[in-house]
């Protein structure tokens, strides 16, 4: 009895989040001073918010193929840095959009490094990168409970070459879906 009441309450909350959440975010993001996305024009964010709401509702009501694909973009970093690069903000905006469109999706952000650092330092740096990405998404309005992080340091290169090009591909944070 208690359990079913609890479930009803949770479902109610979820529905409220799905239908109400995006509208709120659309107005909230521009004045969230902590959000690193403040450089982006407000209009486009509002539009994004509207689109998200639309797609979320579409997928909910009709369960047809959503307009926003459940796919995440990789975020790249500079050497020995964990700051979000300006060119990574588009990828993160896109990823945030996807997370809003699929509100039950939980992701694991995997921080990676190029081979040039030491093994131990790179493990810490990879975790710092993953957390920088997580922080960015949280500031974008994504519930931090949906985001976990891990670091593989320099242990999982996508390109095993020893060139600047290979290194730049390996300094990255990948998104992995761990629940939906």
């Amino acid at each position, binding site marked *: 009895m208690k359990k079913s009441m609890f479930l009803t309450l949770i479902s109610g909350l979820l529905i409220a989040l799905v239908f109400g959440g995006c509208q709120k975010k659309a107005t909230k993001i521009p004045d969230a001073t902590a959000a690193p996305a403040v450089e982006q024009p407000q209009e486009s964010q509002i539009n994004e918010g509207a689109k998200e709401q639309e797609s979320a509702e579409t997928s909910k009501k009709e369960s047809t193929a959503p307009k926003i694909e459940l796919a995440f973009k990789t975020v790249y970093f500079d050497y020995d840095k964990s700051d979000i690069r300006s060119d990574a903000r588009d990828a993160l905006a896109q990823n945030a959009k996807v997370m809003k469109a699929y509100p039950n999706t939980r992701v694991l952000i995997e921080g990676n490094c190029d081979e040039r650092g030491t*093994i131990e330092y790179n493990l810490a740096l990879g975790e710092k990168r993953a957390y920088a990405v997580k922080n960015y998404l949280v500031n974008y309005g994504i519930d931090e409970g949906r985001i976990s992080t891990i670091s593989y340091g320099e242990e999982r290169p996508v390109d095993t070459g020893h060139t600047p090009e290979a290194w730049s591909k390996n300094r990255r944070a990948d998104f992995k879906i761990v629940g939906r």
Partner: protein
Amino acid sequence: MVVMTIKRTFLLAILMVFGFLIFRASAQEDVYMKIQSGGFQPIAISIPPFISQQPTDLTQKIRAVIINDLKLSGFFRVVDEVPGVQASGQTAGLGGALPASSAAAVRLLGTLGINGNELQLSADLEELPGQQAIFRKKFQSAFGSFRWLAHQAADEVVYYLIGERGVASSRIAFTSGKSGVKEISVMDYDANDLEKLTNMNSLNLSPAWSPDGKRIAFTSYKSGTPELVSMDISSGAMTSLWKQGGLPTAPCWSPDGKKIAFTLTRDGNADIYIMDSGGGHLRRLTSGPSIDSSPSWSPTGNEIAFTSDRSGNPQVYLMDAEGGNVRRLTYLGNYNDSPAWSPRGDRIAYVSREEGGFQIYTVEVTGENTTALTNGEGSNENPSWSPDGLKVVFASNRTGKWDIYVMNWDGSHLRQLTDSGNHFSPKWSPRLSIK
């Protein structure tokens, strides 16, 4: 000169037999200083073929291992007893030119037999030419552990003539594997008797020996998320030390074995923590937004060396073991990491990033006398000291593959220990009484 050295060391041996340990300690420092300054003359030792009731090849193997151990120690030249004849190759040489005479100053005689189910080596070490006994000892082992038997005999010879046990009875732990999967293995210090400790098909990183040599702590991704574990080497049983979130890496046991210092990255922020070596009682030593990592205890247990990028790039720092009195140790180069405090206490080995990769350096704890130990091709990483502080093991990709190498404290006498590639993060064990 060599005669004087031998007389001194022999006198030292006699003193030790009578238990004048205080003399031993000071003489040991003297030997170390002589080695460091290059003024040490290797002792000429003769090792005639052992007497045996056992198959000749086993007897020869044991003798060959002892000869190799004594050469690798750097304290000996193995010679025939007739002056001017070198028995088998050069020594690993810890310093100084070869003396004019190669006449043996000491002789090791061995008799191999069986005692119950075990091999037994009776070894007599005597001074020449008078043949006064220095020691007469028996060493036992299972048949399959004949190399260990030889290592123990060799270390005893070093002990009686130098005043400090050798390091032949030690092992090296390391990781091996390819992208995304690394397992922990151990091998004898001379790269023989390799044993795989883990087979978990996951990342296992940063092995660290307990001071009693019975356990290895490391970071394992076996459950998908990284945790710090401690493995009992003989049984393979694992204890989880930290799996309460974050990324625990780079464990280092305190010299008394009671604590483990490690890097814990929580909320994206890497700091140095210590915990009890059985797990629990977590204490944080560093704070702030910089990456603080790779702790290494001083041999006294009073201080910890570590890496921090608080200055803008990674540099080696020292602090008290409770986290206070932080001071920067390295200033040359813009990426210094992997500090390893020498068991002698006087120097810290570390890696410094240069064009093309890392090179290994040592610096005195005062920050003076920075010395390059490597300067070749490729990257040279993860230095770890031998228990006597006279050698450094490290990983290098100088051939295009990652393998494990060892060199003397000053970078001389480089030897390659593995050659099959994909070997990383070597850690030299303490001296081991059992294997």
